[in-house]
């Protein structure tokens, strides 16, 4: 979402507005295709039958009602929330550290540190998942929500590093130099000058990390113990057709929640 504010290009002279009808039609067509599955999920969640086929038997809100009593479903959503919060906080803290080191310090292992932090971007998730799985087996660490959170922190770290890094590169060092000239210690300068400047970027990083984790399945499936996150639980329930509408009802609610959160975050960033 960081690109949104800069997405508005300068006005274009009229003679260059060629091809707009074709491009617009293409946009509308693709958009329809992108929203079709979402519409189907919403339809499924208010469909009276447990399978979605024509003719529809009627509409109902029963699935949403039953959701309130479906403890296991609710618990899986709560687990997802806990894992996403943990990994988002950890990835933002670690990522901010890496970004500060890379931009403000000179040291020999800088390229190695930066390279390692963004490495998960180019490692397929299945490889990371099985590697962590073997590590936890070797170290006799029982799989739990903690192990999922560790995996998600690893894959969210590249995003948090890059988001905070781009903000740090964008602002001048003068403010820090001024603070230190006026007698502030280096830690105090970090806390009082640098941190407020990068705070919006840290918030954006945390939100990105949160959404990366909340929806993640490929790694969570390997690292989940008895307590499952929502995608893992959803996957385990796919075999039972009768449970499906409730799961999808929750999925629709979670979607609505995620979207509200993201739009709110975008608004907050614009107010600043």
């Amino acid at each position, binding site marked *: 979402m960081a690109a949104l504010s800069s997405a508005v290009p300068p006005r274009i002279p009229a003679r260059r507005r060629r091809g707009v009808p074709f491009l617009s039609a293409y946009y509308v067509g693709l958009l329809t295709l992108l929203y079709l599955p979402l519409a189907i999920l919403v339809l499924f969640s208010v469909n009276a039958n447990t*399978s979605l086929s024509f003719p529809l038997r009627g509409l109902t809100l029963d699935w949403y009602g039953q959701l309130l009593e479906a403890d296991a479903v609710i618990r899986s959503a709560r687990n997802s929330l806990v894992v996403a919060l943990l990994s988002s906080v950890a990835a933002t803290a*670690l990522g901010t*550290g890496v970004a500060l*080191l890379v931009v403000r310090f000179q040291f020999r292992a800088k390229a190695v540190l930066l390279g390692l932090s963004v*490495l998960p971007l180019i490692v397929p998730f299945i490889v990371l998942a099985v590697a962590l799985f073997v590590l936890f087996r070797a170290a006799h660490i029982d799989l739990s929500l903690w192990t999922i959170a560790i995996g998600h922190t690893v894959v969210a770290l590249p995003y948090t590093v890059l988001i905070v890094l781009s903000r740090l590169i964008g602002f001048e060092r003068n403010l820090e130099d001024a603070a230190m000239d006026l007698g502030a210690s280096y830690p105090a300068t970090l806390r009082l000058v640098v941190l407020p400047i990068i705070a919006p970027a840290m918030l954006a990083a945390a939100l990105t990390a949160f959404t990366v984790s909340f929806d993640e399945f490929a790694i969570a499936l390997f690292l989940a113990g008895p307590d499952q996150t929502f995608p893992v639980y959803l996957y385990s329930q796919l075999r039972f057709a009768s449970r499906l509408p409730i799961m999808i009802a929750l999925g629709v609610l979670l979607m609505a929640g995620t979207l509200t959160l993201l739009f709110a975050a975008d608004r907050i960033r614009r107010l600043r």
Partner: protein
Amino acid sequence: MPGRRATFWALALPPTLWLVAFLLAPLLLMAALSFRADLRGGILVPWTPTLIQYERLFGEGTYWGLLEVSVLLAAVVAVVATALAYPLAYLLAFRAGPRAGILLILLLVPFWTSFLLRVMAWKFMLGSEGLINSFLGFVGLIEEPITAILYNRNAVAITLVYVWIPFAMLPILAALQRVDPRLFEAAADLGSTPLSQFRRVALPLSMPGLLAAFFMVFIPTVGEYVTPLLVGGSSGSLYGNIIQLFFTQGTNYTFGSALSMVMLVGTVGLVILGLRLVQPRRFVGAEG
């Protein structure tokens, strides 16, 4: 400055320890396992290195063949998704005017919703009792459900292209937004047609974005095992599914590690190659 030195270590230690423990160590452990004959005695015991797992991997055609299929499928999905995303990025960067922001949000909304649920939605649409088939049967166009559109590799590829289009658009959009619109005017003033303006100005300048989009789709797709599980059926599995099997049902960590190592080395190698190709300087000022 003592404060600065202390701050350095306070900032450096947590991420370093974290990366060593949860990124480097697991990958090295996996590499080590791939050079073992079996896991007799446990995971952390001394052993004699052997190439037996790799000999099996390259000796039996099935694994190598599946890797080729997966790489090919990922390449096709990445090319198609990038190509389909390009006009969207072009519209947003040059033609959408002040509405670009809202048009971008609308495209990204589906991407922020659950991956698993979106893939399942395709299943509800394509399945033999799904929307398309039951609708066609209901209105009497077909007697038997069409089964060619689910549980094979085509379904996997179609679903993945659909999933990745908004994602592939982002790096292309970022590259196009850096193009100075005056370049088009200059080209037009010098007599360039709209098509050659696109071919000789926009396309070369968006090359880094195109390559980024390709790799941003290719890497997750080549290791994909979830989509094949959901819509691929028995004939649609990919290399990632084999890795998953060796670590879950047919427990064989050593061979699974060798399979993973091949995938790891392959993708990292490809990315390094790709980065060599896109030294951005090569594209600036090209074609005079």
